[in-house]
């Protein structure tokens, strides 16, 4: 470092250069800071505007807090950018000569100060006289170095933008926030416990009504089927709970109407007509068909008779006479029945009036005709009235047929052709009645489907657990374990090692039901509904359960039920597979094969017969039919 008298002046140069350098660094830092400051200020203005105007629209306080947190993070990040810029600006101006060069520029000293400071930093013995001369020259040239003027602290142009944005932020902060109109609080939608049916059940329901109403132009039936399909789709969409579903089913059932009593009266009328027509060999086929309620057959028979008459086949006069008489009698059957009923009703009314008069005459005397007899009279009268009303309806229904038969009878002896036309007209009447009958049958079938659906729902509802428990008990008994070894838990003590059921099949609503398997062995214990104690079977062990049912009653070995040994033997031809092998193989191949089709047909026929003949709950009929539908033979797996 420089010694001697010049050292003080050189020190002054050094200080000035340092000051100039510091001011340069301040300038650089401020320039970077202010050029980047619009970023956080602009962000702040936007964020504040959002807080003032958009934040009140946010639904929940937690969401609002989340938004605020996000805004705060964003602001901190944007604020860090100018700060980092300022730091980098401060550090970028660290070169020591910059301050001295700035002084040189200001004093137009052509690097004299910078060179002098550079030379003065050298050791004295390394400084040449020329360097000393350069230092002296610098001191002479720049007597009073002025760092403040050399490096004035200036605000960059971006300052005004920052100031403007700062004012904007202040202005926004002073504005009052937007008032959010009170929001209508809607009640929370009630969650319904929708009825849940398996896809199989839904598919079966859809298929069950697919064939109903086909070819019949009955808007009432078509509407009912459409409503049923809509109901099934709503079930698939889980839009209905149990209560709603049962309401809808009831409405649908009501729309289908009750089984018409009129039909019974019409049946009776047709039977009467048949009994008369039976008397003629020519009209006997018609009578047979009417008796069996096979209206299409009756129509066909009428048309055939008309054809025979048209063709004027050889028919003896006596046959024609018998036919005429039969037709005439048949045409009067409805009217005659109605007359008989009317007469019976009149007789009963007279009897009733007579009894009332007698009662009045007897005064306080004990009632000879008891009240019970009077009530009986009234019941009979009501019954007759109802019968008369039905007969009237039936007569109205059959009146056209009666007229056609009567006309055919009158013209039979005069003109066979005209008589045939009347019979054809009668066939049309029968056809109309047949159509009506078929529509009615479809309605009843649809009602049957509704009933099956109800059963399905009942089984999947409140009583489902009990139902399943019963099924399990049944399976245990079927395995030869009559309720023994189980206390509270129906599964405790089951089989070897307390293992659970061997095989499960789908029950109502997709619930798995245990099916006894031969290899599971049998339980030990008391008879059904008897025993006392807990099952002691342990999971994983090979021991049977032990103990008795607390409700044990009677002798477990006494079986009161009638038993019948049934044995079935098939003719073993020694050719081909056994039935079980065919069924097993078909199941593996996807229910294909001609042998399986044959076996399926046999089993299905038997099942259908049983379903028709036996009184089986509708819900179970559904499952049996569904089961056979699922295992039906297929052409391709």
């Amino acid at each position, binding site marked *: 470092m420089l010694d001697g008298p010049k050292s003080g002046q050189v020190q002054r140069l050094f200080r000035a250069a340092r000051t100039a350098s510091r001011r340069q660094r301040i300038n650089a830092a401020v320039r970077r800071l202010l050029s980047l400051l619009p970023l956080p200020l602009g962000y702040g203005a936007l964020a504040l505007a959002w807080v003032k105007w958009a934040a009140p629209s946010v639904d929940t306080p937690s969401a609002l807090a989340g938004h605020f947190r996000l805004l705060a993070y964003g602001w901190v990040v944007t604020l860090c950018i100018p700060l980092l810029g300022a730091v980098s600006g401060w550090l970028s101006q660290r070169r020591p000569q*910059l301050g001295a*060069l700035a002084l040189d520029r200001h004093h137009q000293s052509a*690097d004299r100060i910078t060179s002098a400071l550079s030379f003065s930093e050298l050791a004295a013995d390394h400084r040449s006289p020329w360097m000393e001369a350069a230092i002296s020259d610098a001191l002479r040239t720049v007597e009073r170095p002025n760092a403040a003027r050399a490096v004035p602290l200036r605000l960059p142009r971006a300052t005004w933008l920052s100031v403007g944005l700062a004012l904007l932020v202040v202005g926004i902060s002073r504005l009052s926030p937007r008032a959010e109109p009170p929001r209508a609080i809607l009640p929370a939608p009630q969650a319904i416990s929708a009825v849940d049916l398996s896809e199989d059940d839904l598919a079966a329901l859809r298929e069950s009504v697919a064939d109903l109403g086909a070819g019949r132009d009955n808007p009432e039936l078509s509407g009912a089927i459409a409503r049923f399909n809509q109901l099934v789709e709503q079930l698939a969409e889980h839009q209905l709970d149990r209560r709603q579903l049962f309401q809808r089913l009831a409405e649908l059932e009501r729309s289908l109407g009750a089984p018409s009593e009129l039909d019974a009266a019409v049946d009776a009328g047709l039977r009467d007509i048949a009994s008369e027509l039976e008397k003629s060999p020519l009209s006997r086929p018609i009578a047979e068909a009417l008796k069996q309620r096979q209206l299409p057959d009756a129509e066909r028979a009428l048309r055939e008779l008309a054809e025979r008459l048209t063709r004027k086949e050889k028919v003896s006069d006596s046959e024609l006479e018998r036919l005429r008489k039969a037709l005439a009698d048949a045409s009067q059957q409805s009217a005659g029945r109605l007359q008989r009923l009317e007469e019976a009703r009149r007789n009963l009314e007279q009897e009733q009036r007579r009894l009332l008069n007698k009662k009045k005459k007897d005064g306080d005397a004990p009632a000879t005709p008891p009240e019970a007899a009077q009530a009986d009279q009234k019941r009979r009268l009501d019954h007759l009235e109802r019968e008369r009303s039905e007969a009237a309806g039936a007569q109205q229904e059959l009146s056209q047929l009666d007229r056609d038969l009567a006309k055919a009878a009158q013209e039979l002896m005069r003109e066979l052709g005209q008589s045939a036309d009347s019979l054809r007209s009668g066939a049309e009447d029968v056809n109309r009645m047949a159509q009506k009958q078929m529509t009615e049958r479809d309605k009843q079938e649809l009602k049957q489907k509704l009933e099956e659906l109800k059963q399905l729902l009942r089984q999947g509802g409140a009583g489902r657990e009990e139902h399943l428990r019963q099924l399990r008990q049944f399976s245990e008994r079927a395995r030869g374990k009559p309720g023994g070894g189980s206390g509270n838990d129906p599964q405790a003590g089951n089989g070897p090692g307390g293992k659970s059921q061997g095989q499960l099949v789908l029950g109502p609503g997709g619930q798995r039901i245990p099916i006894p398997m031969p290899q599971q062995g049998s339980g030990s214990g008391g008879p059904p509904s008897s025993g006392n104690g807990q099952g002691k079977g342990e999971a994983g062990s090979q021991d049977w359960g032990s103990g008795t049912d607390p409700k044990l009653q009677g002798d477990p070995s006494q079986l009161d039920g009638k038993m019948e040994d049934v044995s079935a033997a098939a003719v073993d031809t020694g050719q081909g597979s056994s039935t079980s092998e065919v069924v097993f193989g078909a199941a593996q191949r996807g229910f294909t094969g001609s042998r399986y089709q044959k076996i399926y047909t046999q089993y299905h026929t038997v099942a259908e017969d049983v379903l028709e003949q036996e009184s089986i709950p509708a819900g179970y009929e559904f499952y049996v039919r569904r089961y056979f539908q699922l295992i039906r033979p297929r052409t391709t797996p």
Partner: protein
Amino acid sequence: MTGQGQTASSQERTHGARLEWQTAMSETREVEREAERFRHSLSALREEIGRVIVGQRVVIDGVLTCMVAGSHALLEGVPGLGKTMLVRTLSKALGLSFSRIQFTPDLMPADVIGTTVIDEVQSGAKAFEFRPGPIFANIVLADEINRATPKTQSALLEAMQERSVTVGRKTHNLEHPHLVLATQNPLEMEGTYPLPEAQLDRFFFKLNVPFPDREDLHQILERTTTDHAVEPRTVMSRQELLELQALARKVPVAKHVQDFAVRLLLATRPQHPDAPASVRRFVREGASPRGAQAVLMAAKIRALMEGRFAAALEDVRVSALPALRHRVLLNFEGEAEGIKTDSLLEEILKALPEA
């Protein structure tokens, strides 16, 4: 005893320091005097040249700088701009020997450096005698140097670099100072042999001689078309010139100035990471270290001319163009685009930070 001893010691130290300071001050004054003499001498020389040559201040200063640096200059300009006149005037003002060589394609090296001839000595015997060529003058004007064959050019340039000529087995030193001022015409390129890059590097400065402006033309006409012919006077001796050359080398250079010159040189090199994009694109080869030497030497001379005792950044900036323009070689793309090395250098100087 101790107190008196300490006082005496302190007084001795103070006296010693004062003596040192006085010595330093006297040395500083001596330096200042030398610098003042330098400036005065060059000013006188410049004035004397200015009496003959109209305008061309930059060219004159450049030639003077080369002369003080003891190096050679390449003057480029169209004919008739006073290049020969300038060199002739300079030689007369300095009182130095001068020779002019007009380069032509048939010029032989011997025509430049001299030849050995058989001559008869006083005893009557015959002996080989070296007859020096025009290169042996203090100031040599190599007019239209690019018209000579490379062989002849090489002979001249070797003499310029080595400051000696070897003929036969004998080396002949050239007298100091030795200054070659070569000229070349930038327009007539047919039948010329452009100087190779290695030869160009041997010129300290390449000075572009500009066409005189209107005022200067008036003065030129007035001086050359009347009977009032101005004959230059000798204002500086050869010895003075050698002292000035020695003096110029004493000028110190601060670290930041030298660093600036180094960074400037590196920036001309396309391979360097600090080189601007234009240099990377258009420059084939940057300046050699000889270029930085020229820049710094020229900066020192300029500082002295300006009355300073140390070279400044501005001196480097001013010296950069004539010292580097012939050392920065353009690539094909640069040539095709018509890029001027002067504009590239100006771009570098503009972008280069001071510290």
